[in-house]
C-alpha cells in the first residue's frame, strides 16, 4: 500500500490549490487525495450495498422460512397427521359399526362418516397447499384409494345387516387396503411435510456470519476513510460519514443480538415439535392397537389370529414409545395403558374361550365399545385423550416458540435496507463534500 502522508493544507482554507498542485505534480509514491477519495467512495458504496443487500436478503430469507413454517409447513404437517389419525379411526369405527349390527346407534356410524369427511377435506388442503412432489403423490394415491375403501366398507355393512358372513370378509379386505396402501401413503405425505418443516427450520437458523463480516468491513472502511480524510483535509468530523458509521455499527449490533435470540427460540420450537412427533407416533400406534381389538372381534377367528398378533406387536411399540414420551398427562396415559393391557387379556379370554351362547360376544362387544363399561374401550379412550391433550399442548408451545423466533427477527430486514440506504446517502454526501473541494 502506498504510504499516505497528510497534505499540509491551510486549516479551513480553500482546498483547491493543494489538490491542483498534487494532480499537476503527481508523486509516484504518494496517493493523490482526490483519487483516494474517489476510490474510497467506490469501495464504501460497494461495501455498503453488499452489506445492506446481504443483511436484507439473508434476514428476509429467514423471515420467509419462518413464515412458511408457521403458515404452510406446520399446518400441513398437522393436516397430514390428522389424515393418518382419521383413517386409523375410520378403520376401528367401521369394525364397531359392523359389530354393533342392527343395534348400532347412529353415533358410531356418524363417527365413521365424519372421519371420512375429515380425511377428504384434509386431502383437499394438502392438494391445494403442498409443494413437495412426494406429499402430492401420496395424496393422489389416497384420493384414488379412498372411494375403493369406502365402497368395501359399505358392502361389508350392507351384507352384515342381512347377517351374511361375506360382510365380515369385505371388512377384512377393506381394513387390509387401509392398513397397507392408505396408511402408508398417509405416512409418506406426513414424512414429506415433516421434511419440509425441517428444511424451513434449517433455513431459518442460517448463520449470519457473512452479513456480520460485511457490516464490520463497512465500519472499518468508513473508519479508514475518515482517518484518511482527516489527515488529508484536517477536517475533524465528517457528519455524513459519521452518521453512516454509527448506523452501520448499530445494524451490526442488532444483527449480532437478534440472531442468537431467534436461534434459541427455534431450538425450543424444535424440541417441542420433537416431543409432539413422538407423542403422535404413540397415539397412532394406540389407535391401531384399538382397531386390532375391534377387527379381531369382527373377524372371529377368520383372520387366523392376525389381528391379535398385530395387537401384541403394536401394543409393545406403544409401551416402548410411551416410556420415552414426556409431556403433560403422560403419567396418566402410562397408567391407562397398563389397565388397557389387563383389560385386553380379559377380552382375549372371552374371545378364545369356546362360546356357550351369545353372551360372551355381547360382553366382549360391550367391553370394547362402551365408554361406561370398565373395559379396554373405555381405557383406550382415556389414554387417547391424555395423548391428544399432550400433543396439543406441545404443538401450541411449538407455535408460540416459532412466533417468538419471528418476532426476534421482526423489523431487521427492512431496517437493514433503510440503514444501508441512509448510510449510503450519508457516505456519498460526506465524501462528495470533500471531493467537491478539489474541483
Amino acid at each position: 500500500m502506498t504510504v499516505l502522508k497528510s497534505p499540509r493544507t491551510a486549516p479551513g482554507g480553500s482546498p483547491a490549490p493543494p489538490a491542483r498542485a498534487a494532480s499537476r505534480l503527481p508523486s509516484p509514491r504518494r496517493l493523490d487525495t482526490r483519487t483516494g477519495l474517489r476510490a474510497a467512495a467506490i469501495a464504501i458504496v460497494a461495501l455498503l450495498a453488499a452489506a445492506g443487500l446481504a443483511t436484507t436478503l439473508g434476514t428476509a430469507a429467514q423471515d420467509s422460512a419462518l413464515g412458511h413454517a408457521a403458515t404452510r409447513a406446520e399446518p400441513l404437517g398437522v393436516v397430514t397427521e390428522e389424515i393418518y389419525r382419521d383413517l386409523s379411526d375410520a378403520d376401528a369405527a367401521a369394525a364397531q359399526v359392523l359389530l354393533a349390527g342392527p343395534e348400532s346407534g347412529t353415533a358410531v356410524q356418524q363417527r365413521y362418516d365424519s372421519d371420512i369427511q375429515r380425511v377428504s377435506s384434509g386431502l383437499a388442503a394438502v392438494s391445494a397447499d403442498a409443494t413437495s412432489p412426494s406429499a402430492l403423490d401420496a395424496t393422489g394415491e389416497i384420493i384414488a384409494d379412498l372411494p375403493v375403501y369406502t365402497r368395501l366398507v359399505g358392502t361389508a355393512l350392507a351384507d352384515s345387516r342381512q347377517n351374511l358372513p361375506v360382510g365380515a370378509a369385505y371388512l377384512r379386505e377393506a381394513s387390509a387396503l387401509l392398513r397397507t396402501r392408505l396408511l402408508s401413503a398417509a405416512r409418506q405425505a406426513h414424512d414429506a411435510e415433516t421434511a419440509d418443516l425441517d428444511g424451513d427450520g434449517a433455513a431459518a437458523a442460517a448463520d449470519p456470519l457473512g452479513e456480520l463480516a460485511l457490516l464490520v468491513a463497512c465500519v472499518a472502511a468508513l473508519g479508514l476513510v475518515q482517518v484518511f480524510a482527516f489527515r488529508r483535509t484536517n477536517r475533524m468530523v465528517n457528519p455524513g460519514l459519521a452518521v453512516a458509521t454509527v448506523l452501520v455499527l448499530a445494524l451490526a449490533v442488532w444483527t449480532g443480538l437478534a440472531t442468537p435470540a431467534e436461534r434459541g427460540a427455534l431450538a425450543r420450537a424444535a424440541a417441542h415439535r420433537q416431543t409432539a412427533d413422538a407423542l403422535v407416533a404413540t397415539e397412532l400406534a394406540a389407535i391401531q392397537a384399538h382397531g386390532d381389538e375391534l377387527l379381531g372381534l369382527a373377524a372371529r377367528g377368520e383372520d387366523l389370529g392376525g389381528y391379535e398378533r398385530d395387537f401384541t406387536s403394536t401394543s409393545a411399540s406403544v409401551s416402548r414409545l410411551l416410556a420415552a414420551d414426556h409431556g403433560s398427562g403422560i403419567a396418566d396415559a402410562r397408567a391407562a395403558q397398563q389397565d388397557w393391557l389387563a383389560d385386553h387379556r380379559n377380552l382375549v379370554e372371552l374371545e378364545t374361550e369356546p362360546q356357550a351362547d351369545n353372551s360372551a360376544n355381547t360382553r366382549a362387544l360391550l367391553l370394547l365399545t362402551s365408554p361406561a363399561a370398565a373395559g379396554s374401550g373405555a381405557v383406550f379412550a382415556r389414554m387417547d385423550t391424555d395423548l391428544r391433550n399432550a400433543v396439543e399442548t406441545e404443538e401450541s408451545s411449538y407455535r408460540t416458540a416459532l412466533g417468538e423466533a419471528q418476532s426476534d427477527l421482526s423489523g431487521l430486514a427492512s431496517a437493514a435496507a433503510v440503514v444501508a440506504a441512509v448510510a449510503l446517502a450519508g457516505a456519498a454526501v460526506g465524501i462528495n463534500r470533500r471531493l467537491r473541494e478539489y474541483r
Partner: protein
Amino acid sequence: MGDAVASGSVGMPVRRVRGVRWVLTALAVALCAASLTACGTAPAPVRAADGGAVPLPQGVRTVPPGPAGGVSVSGCDASLAPSGPLPQPGAMPAGSAMERIERRGYLIAGVDQDSYLFGYRNSSSDPHASPLVGFDIDFVREIAQAIFGAPDRVRYRIVTQAGRIPALQDGSVDLVVDMMTVDCERAKQIAFSSDYVDAGQRFLVDESSTVRGIGDLAGRKVCSATGTTSIQKLADPSYHIVPVAAVNWADCLVMLQQRQVDAISTTDLLLLGLQAQDPYTRIVGPQITFERHGIGMPMGEDDLVRFVNAVLERLRTDGTWAAIYTRWIGTRLGPVPPPPPAVYQ
C-alpha cells in the same frame, strides 16, 4: 492500483449502465431464491396415481398344479358300528370319552362360523341364544342332547378349514362338524363318523357367466378354500384350471363379486351357502366328485365314534335328519334326498 481505479473511471458511463443491469439481475435472482413461489414455478400436478385398484382378500395365493386325484375313499369310508343302544342322557358309561365330556359340563365342538346355512353367526340379539346356527350346528346340538339331555350344553370353537385336523389332534375340540369330506389321507390322522350328508363338487359362477361346467374353465381362475379337498381336486393338471386358494369361503365370494376369479368350486352344499348370499350367482355343471361327509373326531376315541354313529343312526330313522335337511337346504338342490346309508367296518 490507484491508476487502475482512475482509468476505470474513464469508461464509467457505459460500465455503470452494465453494472446497474447486472445488479438488477442479481437482485432478481436473489429475490427468487428467497421466495421460490414468487417466480411462478407451477406446483407439480397430482400424479395419475396407481392407486384405486381393488385389492385381493388377505392370504390369497395361486396354487400350482398338483398330482391328479383329490378325494380317495376306497377302503377307508367305513366307520365303527354303534355298540348297542344309546345310553340314557346324563348317564354315560364310566371311563368313556362321553363321560369325560359329561363331567366337564359341555361339549366342545369345532365349527365354521362363516359357512352360510351350515355354521354361521346367529343374528339374534338374545344373549342366551346359541351363538351359531346352521345345518352342522343342528347335528352338534343333537349330539349334546344325547350326552346331556340338553342341546345348549355346547361350547363352540371356531376353526378354519386348514385348522380342523390340528384342533382334533391337539385335543382343543371334542369333535369337528364342519362339512368335512371323508378322505383316506385324512382318515390316517383323524377318525370319521359314518356319512351324515353327501355332496359333489360343482361350480358357482356369476349369473352372466357363460361357464356351464369344468370344460369351460381351462386357463381361468377358480377359487376354493386352503386345506380343502376341493382345492386339491382343482389342482389336477388335466383340468388346466388356475386354482386360487383363499383363507375361507367368504373370501372366495368376495373375489367372485369383484370379478377377480371366474368361479368358486366346492361341494354343491357349500356353494348353496354362498349362492344364498348373492342371488346374482348360480351353481353350474355336473358334480365332478362324489363326497361323503363325516363328523371328525380324534384318532383312537373309538367309544366316542361309536356313540356319535348311534346318534346319527337315530336321526336317520326318527325323521330328524330329514327335518334338519329340509330346514336348511330344502329343495334348492333338488328333492330332499333320503339320509345316506351308514357303512361300517
